[in-house]
């Protein structure tokens, strides 16, 4: 497989990653090499093989729908880049 500049730009956008224009050829080369490695999977016949989502095939555990956590908003917001009046601040989204 060979990924080109457009592919890398699209992937970076989907991943919400700003990447340097100058690094794109390196990403294209490295990701192409990684997917060449990954494509060795195609040698395996996986017809009728059930995908393995959990090593022990365990199921999601359920719990009672009761409040167990205490309010720690102040503590959690103390490490936030920008807050005001108890909310996280981001650039304006709606005009």
């Amino acid at each position, binding site marked *: 497989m060979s990924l080109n500049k457009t592919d890398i730009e699209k992937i970076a956008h989907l991943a919400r990653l700003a990447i340097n224009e100058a690094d794109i050829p390196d990403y294209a080369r490295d990701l192409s090499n990684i997917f060449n490695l990954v494509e060795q999977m195609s040698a395996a016949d996986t017809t009728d093989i059930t995908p393995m989502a959990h090593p022990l095939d365990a199921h999601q555990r359920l719990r009672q729908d009761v409040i167990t956590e205490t309010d720690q908003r102040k503590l959690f917001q103390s490490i936030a880049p920008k807050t005001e009046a108890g909310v996280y601040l*981001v650039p304006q989204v709606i005009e």
Partner: protein
Amino acid sequence: MHNKSLSELSASLHNGEFSSVELTQHYLDRINAHNETLNAFITVTDDSALKQAHVADQLLQQNKAGKLAGIPLAHKDIFCTQGVRTSCASKMLDNFIAPYNATVVEKINAAGMVTLGKTNMDEFAMGSSNETSFYGEVKNPWDTNRVPGGSSGGSAAAVAARLAPIATGTDTGGSIRQPASLCNLTGLKPTYGRISRYGMIAFASSLDQAGPMANSAEDAAMLLNEMAGFDDRDSTSVERDVPDYTETLNDSLDGLKIGLPKEYFGEGLDPDVAATIEAAVKMYESLGATIKEISLPNTGLAVPTYYVVAPAECSSNLSRMDGVRFGHRCDDPKDLLDLYQRSRGEGFGEEVKRRIMTGTYALSAGYYDAYYLKAQQCRRLISDDFQQAFNDVDVIMGPTAPTTAFNLGDKTDDPVAMYLADIYTISTNLAGLPGMSIPAGFVDGLPVGLQIIGNYFDEARLLNIAHRYQQATDWHQQTPAGFK
């Protein structure tokens, strides 16, 4: 002091030979003397360590102290430690002061152990050489021109150089076992679900598992006793009793059936490493075990499968680092998209970006069946191989890594070459099985690790098998020159 086992340290603390404050200060002095060379610690918690030691000393005086009380340890900087920077070796979390403790940290604190600091690692545990850390590479105490392995390279270097008696690590594709192998340690990755993942910063959630990195199987067993157990805060934690892992250490190995997968001894394995492993296996024969060649025919699928599953899960897990609630935020974002993209672009290092992009692509519309679904099917094939093998043998042995520690910088330009350093360890994570690496000898002065893989929840048996070998050999007692 620093060449004592955990049980010797415990005895000395309990009989008053020295105090926890003295012991802790001794290790802090060693860190102070050697960390500049090794770069094993990102953060040293001098003040809180001495406070914890003081509390432990009071309990010891009142005869209220448990077995590990007052013994220092180091935590990989992937475990959240309340009030202490938890960076995961990333610029993204350079300013992140964890607001709570990981369950592992809570349990170890409750045992009265003393935290010396947070150890260096590959950024977000993505790497096999500890060269992707934002805080710089870690050096191998056996040869400071070489890598300590990764991703738990700081923990490995710290314990190998006796800057800590024991440390925690995590293993997603070999990150405990491979550095243990390269630094002459005993490292154990337990069965998936045995130790809580709560507060352990997630890389690939279906593979991540914590474990001890120690100087002996006995030390590892003692720490595993504290780390293991069910936690309702981890949705994949397994509800199953924890045995006392020290109780069965001396069990006989008579009749133990060891399988040697022929795929682990093929092309790519350094011949001197192979000879060292074969000698270790011979030793097991003299201890009463029988050896059988087995086959794990889908071994070749492990690395390709892993490089879909792990990046896919990481791309999802790391989406929480968005510059909004914690971590790095770029200056003057012009809009929300710019905030996300530049915060993440600036905060993550190259390898992390590569893996996020690999995972993003593998999960993008139209590719799910070809990559993630196919990988999960291959995972089943790999897991079935092991179950087939365990019909015939009790444990599987082989090399932990294909070579001894390689030179710093050797593989940094070729991600795929680096990925192949984990060729023998990745399968166990995909299958969720427990695996260990123990010191088995040296090649040109560099340590070689023997890998022992067991069936689900066979940790006690693995530790027993490792311990009996360590009773008959002294590889695990060798210390690197310059750190004696």
